[in-house]
């Protein structure tokens, strides 16, 4: 993979905040168009890693390289965590997408057909035409997420970072957003790095997983990484990777015993248990 220009290379990245290690020698690479889940529980360092890639947080050691060697700006699209859009703001969904295109530019926005076309195209790509002229703060969570994805993608970045985009979404919106991101990452050739505390909605879509625990990471294909031996070594204590009803659950040893007991009591509803 090192022969092809990677969309993102993270090499032994370390971050300490207030003397506490947040990231410990995190290393992984993303190829263009790859769809990668950044999985870990709250406090595992996901947001810090994304912010470090954006250049908001400085590394204490290690390196982060983007496709052309620069940080942020044109090559990175970003959808932040739990963004609360003010319903009072006079901004339509299409204005938010237009701001993704040229919101950083100085001077007043002049009307331009090309710009309007680019925005229209992007609204279509995320399936937001129906509510393009509605006030963005009044849209549903799933609709807002689509608009923010369009905002982040409209400049055709090589890398798209999303911080917990599936939090606060219902099951159906979650599946729709994952499918949308998967399709767009292929179409636009953008590598997607998406953080989530639950890997299950992403399992069918992920090319690659970066699993974070206490600031350390393992990266690879999901079937290589989400295994009892690998994750136990990462956590530093024994965890079990349990598959219940087609879902993957990572549990500490005691909890996994309880799950086994529950399954033993109700074997009818249990498809596959290791």
């Amino acid at each position, binding site marked *: 993979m090192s022969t092809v220009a990677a969309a993102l290379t993270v090499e032994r990245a370390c971050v300490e905040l207030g003397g506490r290690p947040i990231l410990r020698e995190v290393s992984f690479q993303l190829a263009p168009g790859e769809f990668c889940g950044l999985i870990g529980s709250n406090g595992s360092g996901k947001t810090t890693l994304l912010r470090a890639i*954006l*250049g*908001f947080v400085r590394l204490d050691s290690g390196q982060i390289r983007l496709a052309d060697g620069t*940080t*942020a*700006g044109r090559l*990175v*699209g*970003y959808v*932040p965590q739990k*963004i609360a*859009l*003010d319903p*009072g*703001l*006079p*901004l*339509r969904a299409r*204005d*938010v997408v237009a*701001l*993704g295109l*040229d*919101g*950083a*530019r*100085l*001077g*007043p*926005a002049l009307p331009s057909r090309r710009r309007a076309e680019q925005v229209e195209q992007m609204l279509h790509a995320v399936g937001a035409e129906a509510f393009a*002229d*509605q*006030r963005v703060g*009044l849209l549903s969570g799933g609709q807002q997420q689509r608009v923010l994805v369009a*905002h982040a993608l409209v400049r055709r970045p090589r890398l798209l970072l999303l911080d917990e985009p599936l939090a606060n979404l219902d099951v159906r919106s979650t599946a729709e957003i994952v499918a949308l991101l998967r399709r767009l990452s292929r179409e636009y050739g953008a590598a997607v790095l998406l953080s989530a505390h639950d890997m299950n909605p992403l399992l069918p879509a992920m090319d690659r997983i970066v699993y974070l625990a206490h600031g350390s990471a393992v990266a690879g294909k999901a079937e290589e990484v989400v295994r009892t031996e690998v994750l136990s070594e990462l956590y530093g204590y024994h965890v079990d990777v349990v598959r219940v009803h087609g879902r993957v659950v990572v549990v500490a040893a005691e909890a996994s015993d309880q799950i086994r007991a529950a399954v033993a009591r109700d074997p009818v509803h249990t498809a596959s248990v290791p």
Partner: protein
Amino acid sequence: MFAPFMVHAWLLATIVALVSGAIGFFVVARRAAFPAHALPLGAFPGAAAASLLGVNQLLGLAVFCALGVLVISQLQRGERREVASALWLALSLAAGVLLLSLSGVYAQSINGLLFGQVLGVSREQVVSVAVLSVGALGVLALFARPLLLDSLSGELAAAALGRTGRLEWIFLAMLALTTVIAVPVVGALLVFTLMVGPASAARAFTNRPWRALAGSVALSVASVWGAIALAYLTNWPVGLFVGLLGAACYVSGRLRSAGAVAQAG
């Protein structure tokens, strides 16, 4: 109403309304009503200090505004913006009490600083305000898009610009410049009305950002014109009508929003 001595008043008030209405759009978009109150009011002791030292009032306002921007922008990194603004207001008003007691400024000129002095302005004052206003509107036009993006989300703006925090600083500096322009004319207390009333009304009537900005400017100018006309007809103070019309704008906006929500729900 349009006698020669009134022409300067109309001109000056119009310029001030243009600038206040424009910056007001961003004040409301950024939910920065409190800093927009604290900076002008916190700058008014600067004018008292200027008269104590015998220098131009605008200079005193400018110095206190700059101090206010510095205190608020530095403090709000650790604290919330409201806390930073409140602290600045407390500090500057404390200084103001002292300065007023030392300088022995007449109650009449304090009244003018708080509630404005539209009538009896000189040609020179109109020119200096016009020059400052062109500058202020120019800078605002330059940063309009980044400021709007930053109002939507600071994180998104930081990702697009590759750095954080710079825009809040620019916004506060613009607020300070508006203060210097507007306080001598509409007063430290009433400039706030002119920034918040028209802007919050305008955004209730449109979903388009630049239309809301234009609407805010239009309502602001209309409020000031209405206030001068009513004051001329009734012989009551201009400030009364600036305040009343600003509040009327705000209430109409709230009614419109409530109507829109009721319709949607």
